[in-house]
């Protein structure tokens, strides 16, 4: 195994801690990044020579880990066992691991590189779950990055593949391309106009999945949505991706016309809501995650409408990551009382926004 000490690898050249570094996808670059926060591609892959994790013993799973680590020496791979339970929470908040992966530690691992724009989980439901995530609406770019890695991995690892069914996955609902393409969307005006329900229904009927901000739960927070492709077999990757891209372009158009209408009918109320949200974030002494996410949506809308000119999308993205409980704990020294979180969250948000970021 090439990488044994994650602490060493997790340190950037500047000596800064890995978890204090802002992931590349939050840069706010890429097109429509106020409405489309990020584009993500996920590929599920298995090794032909090994049984799937679900029916493997711990020993077999550890063999898979060793097999992959030996052959993929150019990518830093960390065993989950090398992280503390607290760091597992950080990885989870970064979307670098899933709850499912954290259920077991032995033989489970994670590979992270390119400023987190590419990562993979080892021995979750499938041997490999690879993902690439980029800022803005850039699905094709995200796929291009991951596709190259997929080819390299395929040559050195030998993926389970059948000419009929395609890439073989543990869950038959992923078989074929093993791919899911998704975007994280911010659609405040559509939610306000209550047109969103009909749109969501229509999206479901044509094979798209809509979920809330935390993709593992279905709750809506702050007008943020995950939209992803559902079919995996009988379609080409490129077609699935361009299909999602087209839908997103349409949603952006709907959102923009809903915003125009909103401004036309209630300009002062909209402005008032945005400025109030900004003032609360700049001065509150206690902030829950939910409250922050909702207020940051209003501020984000303010940036999109050109009402707030001195806030950067990258700052809002960064805040969405760092106000989560584990990140907050890490940044400010692990608080002892749970109640301290809201206080420290408010402090952190104030600092970043008052900096004029």
């Amino acid at each position, binding site marked *: 195994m090439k990488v044994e000490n994650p602490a060493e690898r997790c340190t950037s050249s500047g000596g800064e801690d890995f978890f204090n570094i802002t992931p590349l996808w939050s840069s706010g670059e890429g097109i429509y990044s106020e409405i489309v926060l990020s584009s993500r591609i996920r590929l599920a892959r298995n090794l032909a020579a090994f049984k799937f994790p679900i029916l493997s013993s711990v020993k077999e799973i550890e063999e898979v880990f060793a097999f992959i680590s030996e052959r993929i020496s150019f990518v830093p791979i960390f065993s989950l066992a090398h992280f503390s339970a607290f760091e597992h929470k950080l990885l989870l908040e970064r979307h670098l691991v899933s709850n499912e992966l954290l259920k077991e530690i032995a033989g489970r691992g994670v590979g992270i590189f390119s400023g987190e724009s590419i990562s993979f989980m080892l021995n979750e439901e499938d041997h490999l779950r690879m993902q690439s995530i980029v800022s803005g609406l850039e699905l094709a770019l995200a796929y291009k990055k991951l596709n190259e890695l997929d080819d390299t991995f395929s040559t050195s690892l030998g993926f389970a593949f059948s000419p009929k*069914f395609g890439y073989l996955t543990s869950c038959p609902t992923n078989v074929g391309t093993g791919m899911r393409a998704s975007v994280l969307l911010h659609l405040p005006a559509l939610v306000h106009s209550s047109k969103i329900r009909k749109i969501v229904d229509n999206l479901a009927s044509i094979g798209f999945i809509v979920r809330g901000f935390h993709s593992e739960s279905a709750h809506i927070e702050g007008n943020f949505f995950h939209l992803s492709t559902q079919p995996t077999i009988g379609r080409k990757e490129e077609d699935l991706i361009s299909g999602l891209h087209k839908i997103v372009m349409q949603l952006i158009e709907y959102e923009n016309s809903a915003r125009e209408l909103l401004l036309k009918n209630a300009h002062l109320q909209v402005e008032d809501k945005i400025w109030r949200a900004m003032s609360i974030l700049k001065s509150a002494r206690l902030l829950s995650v939910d409250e922050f996410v909702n207020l940051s949506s209003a501020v984000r809308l303010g940036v999109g409408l050109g009402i707030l000119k001195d806030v950067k999308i990258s700052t809002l993205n960064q805040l969405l990551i760092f106000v989560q409980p584990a990140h907050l704990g890490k940044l400010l020294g692990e608080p002892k009382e749970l109640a301290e979180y809201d206080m420290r969250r408010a402090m952190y948000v104030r600092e970043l926004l008052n900096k004029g970021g």
Partner: protein
Amino acid sequence: MLCDICHKSEAVLIYTLVINNQKTALHLCEHCATKRELINSVSSLGLTDFISLISYPDNIDKLKCPRCGLTYRKFISCPKFGCSDCYKVFEKEIAPILRRLQGSDEHIGKMALNSSNNSKEKKVLELRKRLKDAIAGELYEEAARIRDELKKLKSDEG
């Protein structure tokens, strides 16, 4: 009727989902309906749909993957496969489900780089690994078959 999401409160409204042109009804309580107001929980329904379409063939008790030992009965209770061979063993059972759920059971996307020119070395590696699995699982017939295949590969080498 209890709410389909929390299974605690009484359901007060029916939420209709359309998945691949098929209607599914979700019964929700006030609380869950508001919380999930705009969300259709299609995500989890992907697998739920799959389960609802599973068939029960006559030879159900004989259906078993020789490599990983997964029985069709176990697959029905938890529809996840144990190894890549399961797709061959249960092909007849899952192909129609895929056709109904996704409109197709034929992969037309990217081909794995390793599939076309599977080098002999890798093939041998895979067979050895599978031989080990078979012996560990006391599947001696399967083990004998793999051993023959390995012998044949070696004799091809000349």
